[in-house]
């Protein structure tokens, strides 16, 4: 039993934790061991495909429930992402974190977090799921504060959000257990429709909100940007690439695994407005508001993390669209998002590795010094913005198409608005880092070492290849859909079946390449060109040199700031402040009960006596 890939993967991640504790002081050994273990896990993960449908029951019985794990297509899909992205993160960190202080615990928490995520994904009963879910969220918390100092306060914010969400899930799971008498997914799913309507709604609400916090759905997203942006950039990519998406995993599980579409539509409020639609509206807000917030960020990492929130909205829109294409798009978008956001953040990390900053107002012109990072970022942002031929476009197209087919024009337009906002902010990102004038202090920097380039190249390939040939991933998604009893997406190797829609990425890419060739010929028709210094530049006759900052990147979208500034009410931030001051005030007032005056204390005792007697007398 222990030779099954599932068991081996879980064991390996635990072994990683243990090994890292043992090797706490030996950083280089830690690195090598972690790399080897994660590589082994990826290899095992590939074998996992053959074992889909098998279950593993551990001999550990807690509260009458043996901890059980199962390999479903969805689990395979997620573990594939988890292990591959973790391996890439480790490879990237090998170089980027070498010799940095306070990284002893880095791999430790990475393993713990990976263990938690794998466990959550494999879990076949709610108890295992919740236990590992908790472990995972705490793993996230520890990963967030690897850089110390400034990362502590946002990490604390995360804990408050995460613990709140866990508690909601906890209550939901407890209620499910109380009403169905079981933890096992299968039995719960079977018994779920027989719960009373009100209880069902309560459970669904509790769990949806719980998962919404973890997937950073508006308006519960405020914990994410700061906390992700203040840790190491390689971790920012890991966290926003896959960690946030565990919330989406939970939502998929809840919606398709337990509730099912028919049931979800039963919660009608007014006409078409059912629970699904309400969640979708929040999904749409999740797209628009964070995306436009990202527009005005001055830090590359923070900008990308805001997009991390926004992209989650697409997944929610897709998954909740009740359309085979849309669901497939939503699930596919998780993978795509992971590839390109990791790519973007690795590129930013490469820049940060050399320049030591990710402040968008201080960089510029690095394309001449770090072309690989530039290419990585370019591929990444094309994916993020959802422009063909990168993979982000394919999944977004599925979602738009599904929303239009289902007749939700306003959800569809919000998805498109999000895309436009994304284009604006990613252009700012690439422009302020790589384009414009090179700052004199970065004149001498070099491209990052090969080990850091490798993940960037791999991800570039992935972003492009899955964009042109989405078929292999879509086949997996079709399996996932079938496993939940949904209609599978009608896919072909390069797009969708013509009966369901018009998309053939291979043709588009071929025509695009043809167009590029034609344009290249036109370009060659002209005379030679000469690369000139950046200081040979039009400045209305002014002589430029190094001492003159001749760059436009501060307040890049001034016009929009004029439009949006009056709208920035900071409702969420103010609510957070209000809640925290409420807790503080409550604490302050409640502790005044303990006045320090003995006479008052004595009165409390007397009062308690009287109240107890009266209460007992009245109620007996």
């Amino acid at each position, binding site marked *: 039993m222990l030779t099954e890939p599932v068991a081996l993967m879980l064991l390996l991640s635990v072994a990683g934790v243990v090994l890292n504790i043992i090797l706490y002081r030996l950083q280089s050994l830690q690195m090598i061991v972690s790399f080897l273990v994660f590589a082994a896990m990826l290899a095992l993960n590939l074998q996992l495909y053959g074992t889909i449908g098998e279950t593993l029951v551990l001999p550990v019985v807690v509260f009458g429930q043996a901890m059980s794990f199962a390999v479903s297509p969805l689990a395979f899909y997620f573990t594939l992402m988890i292990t591959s992205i973790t391996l890439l993160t480790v490879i990237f960190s090998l170089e980027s974190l070498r010799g940095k202080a306070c990284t002893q615990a880095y791999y430790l928490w990475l393993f713990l977090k990976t263990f938690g995520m794998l466990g959550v994904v494999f879990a076949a009963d709610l108890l295992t799921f919740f236990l590992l879910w908790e472990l995972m969220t705490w793993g996230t918390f520890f990963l967030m504060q690897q850089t110390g100092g400034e990362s502590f306060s946002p990490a604390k914010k995360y804990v408050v959000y995460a613990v709140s969400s866990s508690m909601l899930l906890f209550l939901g799971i407890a209620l499910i257990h109380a009403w169905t008498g079981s933890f096992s997914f299968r039995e719960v799913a079977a018994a779920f429709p027989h719960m009373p309507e009100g209880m069902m709604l309560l459970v669904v609400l509790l769990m949806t909100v719980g998962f919404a916090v973890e997937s950073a759905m508006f308006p519960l997203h405020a914990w994410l940007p700061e906390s992700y942006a203040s840790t190491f950039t390689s971790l920012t990519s890991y966290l926003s690439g896959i960690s946030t998406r565990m919330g989406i995993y939970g939502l998929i599980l809840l919606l398709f695994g337990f509730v099912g579409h028919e049931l979800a539509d039963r919660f009608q409020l007014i006409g078409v407005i059912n629970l699904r639609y309400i969640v979708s509206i929040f999904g749409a807000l999740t797209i628009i508001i964070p995306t436009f917030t990202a527009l005005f960020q001055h830090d590359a990492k923070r900008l990308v993390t805001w997009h991390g929130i926004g992209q989650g909205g697409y997944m929610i829109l897709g998954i909740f669209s009740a359309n085979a294409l849309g669901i497939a798009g939503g699930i596919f978008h998780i993978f795509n998002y992971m590839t390109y956001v990791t790519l973007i953040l690795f590129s930013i990390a490469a820049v940060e590795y050399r320049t030591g900053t990710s402040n968008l107002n201080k960089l510029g012109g690095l394309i001449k010094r770090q072309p690989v990072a530039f290419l990585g970022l370019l591929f990444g942002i094309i994916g993020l913005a959802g422009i063909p031929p990168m993979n982000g476009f394919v999944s977004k197209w599925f979602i738009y198409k599904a929303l239009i087919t289902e007749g939700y024009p306003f959800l*569809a337009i919000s998805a498109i608005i999000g895309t436009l*906002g994304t284009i604006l902010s990613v252009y700012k990102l690439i422009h302020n880092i790589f384009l414009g004038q090179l700052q004199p202090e970065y004149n001498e920097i070099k491209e990052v070492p090969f080990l850091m380039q490798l993940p960037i190249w791999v991800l570039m390939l992935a972003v492009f290849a899955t964009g042109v040939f989405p078929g292999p991933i879509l086949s997996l998604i079709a399996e996932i859909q079938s496993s939940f009893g949904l209609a599978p997406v009608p896919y072909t190797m390069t797009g969708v079946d013509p009966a369901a829609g018009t998309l053939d990425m291979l*043709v588009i890419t071929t025509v695009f390449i043809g167009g590029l*060739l034609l*344009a290249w010929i036109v370009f060659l028709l002209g005379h030679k060109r000469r690369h000139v210094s950046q200081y040979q530049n039009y400045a209305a006759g002014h002589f430029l040199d190094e001492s003159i900052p001749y760059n436009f990147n501060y307040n890049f979208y001034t016009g929009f700031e004029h439009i949006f500034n009056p709208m920035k009410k900071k409702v969420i931030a103010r609510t957070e402040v209000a809640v925290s001051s409420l807790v503080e005030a409550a604490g302050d007032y409640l502790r005044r009960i303990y006045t320090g005056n003995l006479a008052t204390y004595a009165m409390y005792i007397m009062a308690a006596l009287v109240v107890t007697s009266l209460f007992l007398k009245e109620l007996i």
Partner: protein
Amino acid sequence: MSTVLWIIFYPIIAFAIGVILLGYGRKFNARVQRRYGPPIQQVFYDILKLMSKRTNISHGWMHDTALVMLLGGTLLTLYFIPVPGFDFFSGYGDFLVVMYILLIPSLGMALGVGETANPNGSIGISRALQMLAGYDIPFALTFIGMAILAGTTNFSEIIALQQAEGIFGWGLMTNPFLGVAALIALHGMMGEKPFEVMVAPHEIATGPMTEMGGKYLGMMMIQHALNVVIELTIYINLFLGGAANWASYLVKLFVLMTLILSVNALFGRFRVDDAVRFMWKVPLVLAVIGVLIIIL
């Protein structure tokens, strides 16, 4: 065989039409200002001159690549929009695809301009992108509205549906709100006054084109010529019933161009935030009304 011939010659035909349209635009403008104006083929001379410049400067490889991306992306878009006699690719990518491949040229240009390291260029791009967000939202909403109305996102099918019912089947007739909204958005998309703040020669030295000279500017002008055709054709396909033959296609092109030029000739320039506000107030509200009419 004719397919191959079309594929080879279609860009050239479209380019010729674009050049004529642009020249017509300049002539039209001159006549409004009571000038004689340049010859109608003037744009062709300009492009030829720019392409034949003896020296060219570039600020780096992205600057070069950008132009290729700009023109290549435009050619890609061109192929995916059906015109009479040419409808080979619309079965592989619907107008959702077109909407996004339309962004490739913008992105390419933005990247290249960024590398020229000229603040005027960056400001121009910043404005262009803000304008993009301004006009594309109402435009996309009209797209979606038409798609829901037609029950398909495929260009050819939409054209076929409109043509089936004659002039009263045109999108502009069946849903005038969407048609008008899209027309205003189209105006912004063409970058004509009052929405030409991204170029604004008098304040930011033609913005994106500041550092573009010689063949770089030439390629941008070629792209511009093609783009005019693309944008007008999209509108024709969605709202003016497509075109059954080349004659009606050309008539529609010139009528639409004239409409836009007449507005262009009369206006000054909006500031970018005003332009965006306008776009989000008038056409967007019209589009929302149009969509509400469709879904309710």
